[in-house]
């Protein structure tokens, strides 16, 4: 049963992953990517990591829903009613990717992989939590700082008017140039 599930998910992941770059519709490309990443989540569950697999499934569903909105916002032909190609250097990229896959496959098939060391814990999720709050605390702190920095950076990038728009190039304007006056001195 597990073998059948593996092959179904594996084929679906590859085919839907490749179709992302074949579809003419932006919406279809997004949902094709979602299918591929949901299969990855399913395969992670198959490997015994139920918690992380479900996290991937939930996160990718939300992420792709947001991506679909941005695709329709910024790109032409969201419904795929006309043929569309937005690719460059297809041959060169195909050669690079083909060579890389051959190299990776050779490494995977020829490497003397070590045997399985130890047994999986009864509760891998608990193991992950204890690791992140213990020996891998630095990883968790780095991820937290990266998330915080991303929040600040995305707000700065997405905001329409910055401090130079408000206070001039030398930041010395006595009053900020706001379209709507506000604050104490209005």
């Amino acid at each position, binding site marked *: 049963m597990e073998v059948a599930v593996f092959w179904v998910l594996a084929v679906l992941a590859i085919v839907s992953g*490749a179709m992302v770059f074949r579809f003419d519709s932006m919406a279809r490309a997004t949902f094709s990517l979602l299918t591929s990443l949901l299969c990855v989540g399913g395969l992670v569950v198959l490997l015994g990591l139920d918690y*992380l697999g479900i996290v991937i499934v939930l996160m990718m569903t939300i992420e792709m829903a947001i991506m679909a909105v941005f695709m329709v916002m910024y790109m032409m032909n969201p419904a795929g009613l006309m043929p569309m190609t937005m690719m460059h250097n297809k041959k060169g*990229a195909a050669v690079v990717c083909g060579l890389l896959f051959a190299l990776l496959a050779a490494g995977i098939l020829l490497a003397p992989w070590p045997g399985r060391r130890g047994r999986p814990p009864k509760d891998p999720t608990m193991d992950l939590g204890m690791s992140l709050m213990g020996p891998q605390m630095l990883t968790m702190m780095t991820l937290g700082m990266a998330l915080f920095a991303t929040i600040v950076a995305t707000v700065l990038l997405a905001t329409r008017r910055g401090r130079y728009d408000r206070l001039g190039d030398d930041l010395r304007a006595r009053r900020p140039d706001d379209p709507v006056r506000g604050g104490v001195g209005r």
Partner: protein
Amino acid sequence: MSLELFLLLAAALFCVGLFGALTQQSIVMLMMGLELMLGGVILAAGTVWHYIAPATADGQVLIVVAVTAMALEMAIGFAVVTALFRSREIDMTDMAAEMKE
């Protein structure tokens, strides 16, 4: 199922994503390629955890890092596209290349 099969699948996903990242002109489509590549990394980390070192949580931690990288990449990517579109009305990599000059 074996370690090699899972890793071959992960390598295939990574290479399909790389093809998209190298060929796509649209920044949003380029980000989709990066997401596929990270999907391959996630699968490889899970495979190494399951088949080689299930007793330690290092493989799981690597999956957490990759999933976080996916979220950060998307958030920053869309913010950059928004800023680019607002200033130049472009969403294609070829047109954004002139900004380095």
